[in-house]
């Protein structure tokens, strides 16, 4: 059964891909959805087994790559962490498959879309199910490929292809770090199996320099995949892909792979305080940085993209302070509400026939009420309004950050409050106020079909109640998710000094944040609804700060000047100066000088028979003379 979970989506991919256009759309959709749904059912079974106390399960298919002392196999590990990931991937994956049936209905390449989507689910499952680093790497690069394929799904548009290439190449930078980290793990542990490595790791003393090196390298991989500074700029561009892709790959699952990976390696990270610090700082800076950019964006998907980058940063904050379970908890709730928000945005875009600019929206709530209500729930959840899902998970991260350092807490809170503002800005500009969409668009506006609204409703329910799986002690809960995951984080827990906040402090922190949150919502309401403020049109004069944020701190331009262009210059230099005028010139010179020499020697062969005979006779005499002298 374990094997079937990844294999079914793979079969789905193969079937749809190999049938090509011959397959009727409906059938392709059926296969695509069913394969993921069956995997989901199997995942539930495994999950229930673990829930009732079964030991982690391992299953090996066959030996994969081996040479000398190196060996790796195709084998899977089902433990609480991976089984939770399985539920998210197949569960939300299934909902998004269903949603896509409606969303992609009119696309000519409908079948191709479903084949890619199934392939993605396959690789994502490999990533979390693999019981060794190399198999995780297979999934890791595989989802990168699918991300590339789906960002550039509409391949006639070269801008989209640029975005796809950027995503793949930038991810490869991270992958380079990851693979070198994996190799160093093999060098030091003599194995790349999680089990062997983690059990050997408990004998290592804290603060070994090579552990820091390994974990840092692994984290570079996480930076790429989970879009953290400095490798985050691909994710906003990745919004070129169809919206279900943004929801599934670029919000709910793939981009959280880095979080999963760090959590999986919690023991190694806990051995290296320096690496933990790096994770924490990167997370904090990214969370704040991306949130400020999101304040000014006018593309509905771009706002959500920067929000994703920011939320991922928050998850890394959790990991960085050693609250691994909280990181995973927030990853789960984020998967619910961010998938919901993206799908909601997709429904808006669908209703407006491709319009993505919030300046041309407004007043949509009465036309597409299901989308509106579900989107509202998503916004409440991400803003951390109790009792929606985001409240609990975010609160847990903030409380943990506070224990580590009030400064970290302050930055994280600031990022969260900015999130509240830009999310409500988005909500108000889209659904409230004047209708700015133009008569033609408003005339055709329609609520999305059932296949799209039902997933929205389910995700809205999850976003509402999802937080209760981590209900803290404070509210009489047992923090189920933290207990469920505790075996995975058991050994690293021993290395951490546990603080406990008093209930009073916890209430005070929580109360402060909620109060600020409400104040910000009121402010956003007055600005965007009461005063009906609309962001400046393209090309309008902006203040320096506003412009810097709007242009995303010019990071793309900086990367272009500092990395991309120099690489091309260097390549040109190699090609023109060193290759053509250097090495090849030298080779030809040797050749030419030889030519000159042979021109000299050619005179010896002048074609006169008499001359040849003369030389021959002289030669014979010399040979004879030579042999006599010996």
């Amino acid at each position, binding site marked *: 059964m374990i094997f079937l979970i990844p294999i079914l989506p793979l079969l789905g991919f193969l079937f749809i891909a190999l049938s090509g256009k011959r397959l009727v759309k409906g059938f392709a959709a059926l296969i695509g959805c069913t394969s993921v749904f069956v995997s989901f059912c199997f995942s539930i079974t495994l999950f229930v087994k673990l829930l009732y106390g079964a030991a982690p399960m391992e299953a090996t298919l*066959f*030996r*994969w*790559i*081996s*040479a*000398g*002392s*190196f060996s790796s196999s195709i084998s899977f590990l089902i433990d609480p962490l991976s089984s939770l990931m399985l539920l998210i991937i197949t569960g939300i994956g299934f909902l998004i498959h269903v949603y896509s049936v409606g969303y992609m209905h009119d696309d000519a390449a409908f079948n191709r879309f479903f084949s890619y989507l199934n392939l993605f689910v396959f690789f994502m499952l490999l990533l979390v199910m693999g019981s060794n680093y*190399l198999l995780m*790497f*297979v999934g890791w*690069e*595989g989802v990168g*490929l699918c991300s*590339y394929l789906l960002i*550039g799904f509409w*391949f*006639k548009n*070269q801008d989209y*292809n*640029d975005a796809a*290439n950027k995503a*793949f*190449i930038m991810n*490869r*930078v991270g*992958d*380079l770090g990851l*693979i*070198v980290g994996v*190799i*160093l793990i*093999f*060098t*030091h542990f*003599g194995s790349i199996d999680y089990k062997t490595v983690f059990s050997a790791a408990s004998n290592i003393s804290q603060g070994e320099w090579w552990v820091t090196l390994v974990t840092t390298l692994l984290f570079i991989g996480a930076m790429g995949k989970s879009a953290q500074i400095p490798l985050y700029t691909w994710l906003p561009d990745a919004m070129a892909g169809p919206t279900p892709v943004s929801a599934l790959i670029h919000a709910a699952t793939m981009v959280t792979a880095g979080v999963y990976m760090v959590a999986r390696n919690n023991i190694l990270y806990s051995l290296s305080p320096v690496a933990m610090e790096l994770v924490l700082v990167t997370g904090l800076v990214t969370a704040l940085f991306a949130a400020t950019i999101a304040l000014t964006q006018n593309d509905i998907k771009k706002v959500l993209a920067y929000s994703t980058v920011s939320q991922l940063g928050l998850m890394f904050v959790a990991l960085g302070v050693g609250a691994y379970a909280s990181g995973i908890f927030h990853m789960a709730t984020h998967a619910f509400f961010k998938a919901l928000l993206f799908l909601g945005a997709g429904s808006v875009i669908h209703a407006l026939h491709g319009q993505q600019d919030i300046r041309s929206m407004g007043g949509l709530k009465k036309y597409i009420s299901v989308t509106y209500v579900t989107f509202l729930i998503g916004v409440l959840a991400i803003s951390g309004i109790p009792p929606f899902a985001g409240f609990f998970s975010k609160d847990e991260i903030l409380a943990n950050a506070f224990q580590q350092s009030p400064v970290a807490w302050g930055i994280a809170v600031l990022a969260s409050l900015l999130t509240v503002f830009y999310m409500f800005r988005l909500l108000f500009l889209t659904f409230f106020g004047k209708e700015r969409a133009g008569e033609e668009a408003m005339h055709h506006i329609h609520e999305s079909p059932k296949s799209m609204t039902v997933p929205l409703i389910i995700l809205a329910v999850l976003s509402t109640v999802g937080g209760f799986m981590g209900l803290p002690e404070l509210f009489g809960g047992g923090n189920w998710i933290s207990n469920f995951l505790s075996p995975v984080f058991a050994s690293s827990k021993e290395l951490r000094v546990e603080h406990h906040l008093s209930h009073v402090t916890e209430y005070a922190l929580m109360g402060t944040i909620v109060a600020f949150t409400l104040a910000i919502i009121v402010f956003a309401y007055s600005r965007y609804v009461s005063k009906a403020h609309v962001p400046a049109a393209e090309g309008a004069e902006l203040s320096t700060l506003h412009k810097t944020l709007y242009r995303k701190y010019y990071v793309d331009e900086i990367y272009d000047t500092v990395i991309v262009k120099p*690489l*091309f210059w*260097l*390549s*040109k230099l*190699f*090609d023109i100066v*060193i*290759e053509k005028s250097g*090495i*090849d010139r030298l*080779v*030809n010179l040797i*050749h030419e000088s030889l030519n000159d020499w042979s021109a000299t020697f050619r005179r010896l062969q002048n074609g006169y028979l008499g001359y040849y005979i003369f030389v021959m006779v002289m030669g014979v005499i010399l040979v004879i003379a030579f042999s006599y002298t010996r």
Partner: protein
Amino acid sequence: MLTALLIFIPLAASVVVLATKPFLAKFISFSVSLAVLAVSLVTAFQFDKTQGTQFALNLPWVTSLGINFSVGIDGISLLLVLLTTVLMPGIILSSFRDTSKPSSFYSLMLLMQSAMIGVFVSLDGFLFYIFWEVALIPIYFICLGWGGENRGRITLKFFIYTLTGSLFMLVALIYLYFKTPGQHTFAIQALYDAGHLLSSTQQALVFVALFLAFAIKMPIFPFHTWQPDTYTVAPVEGTMLLSAIMLKMGIYGVIRWLIPMVPLAVKTWGGVALSLSVIGIVYASCIAIVQKDFKRLIAYSSIAHVGLISAGLMTLTVVGMQGAMIQMVSHGIVVFGLFYVVEIISDRAKTRDLSQLGGIRNVAPLLATVFMVIMLGSVALPITSGFVGEFLLINSLVQYKLWIGVIAATTMILGAVYMFRTYQKVMSGETNGVTALVNDLSHYERLVLFPVVILIVLIGIYPGPLLDISEAAVKNLLSIYPDLTAVVK
């Protein structure tokens, strides 16, 4: 006996084809290549992977000079023989245009196959040299007779360049020959023994001479400048022969005739060879990024890939050498597919200029998909054949020295840059006037390319059997470096 068949079937056929009617030439050559493939498969099935050299044949040839017709197959040889025999039918099939003078053309191809197999199975220094040189002649004439613009000047340069390298090798072999005790002999084991007894200076000289020959053949930076021109100007079959199989002669030479021959020098100077190879990876990848000619771009990518292989070899570890073995197989298949795709496109669009191509995916989706898979093999995406080798090679280099490993591993990034950009320029975007005429793969082309795609994925998922073939031979070969093959801790 099987070994001799592998050499003599194509050799005999090459004479026969020369005499047959032109329209039969291709058919006969193809059938012969299939027959040789069958023989090689029989060999592979009878091969005992736990044993050393098998199917040995040792006939006296020039007894007075100690030269024997001595051939045999171990795991290392077998993989390369298989690569040759598997690709050969494909290369013959891929020559779909009306070749002028087909009799001579296919005769030369078969002669080439015979000589290359000879190189991979020779256990006598002189025989090895003969096959090595014989292989050069047909490819020279193939390039000269059927090549593109400027072929005269370019193929002459190629010929002289590689011939110069071979002369160094000949000198080194003769030198070793004279160092063999008693009745001099070219037998490989005797040469090994003679090499081991040399002083470190003498070993260094032999190392330089042999390495030059092999480095030029592969080619390794900075001995590579003949390669892009030659690959570009050669007819596609010639390019395939050169890149998919012939360059492996150079790598094979390092494995069989250099590393076990002069261990002291290899330990001392191997680092230099390794460094050159690693420089070549970055250097050639960068140049590939700015190429405008599709075929030339692939040529430079080949230099980068070969650089990684030879760098891994020079770590003298089982992991590195096994990586090199599997990567040779993978590179052969991948580069064959790439050049075929280039040929198909340039044949239909009448240009290889990347700036003029684009949007082929709209008109030829199957071609685009096939190219995508081959490209993924080239950039070493996991579960393609390219990943297995690249991972093992980078693994060996990281263990050799971390920073060198990291530089070598930048091929992951740079490879993605030039290949994905190429895919975008050729396949994606809107179809234009040039590419509108590109129709999708014919049945005939599918027959060649589908096996390529299947092999790339299959080897990527299940490389075990191939790795097993050469593991024992590689361990045996490296046993003279006991301190290096121990697990690095």
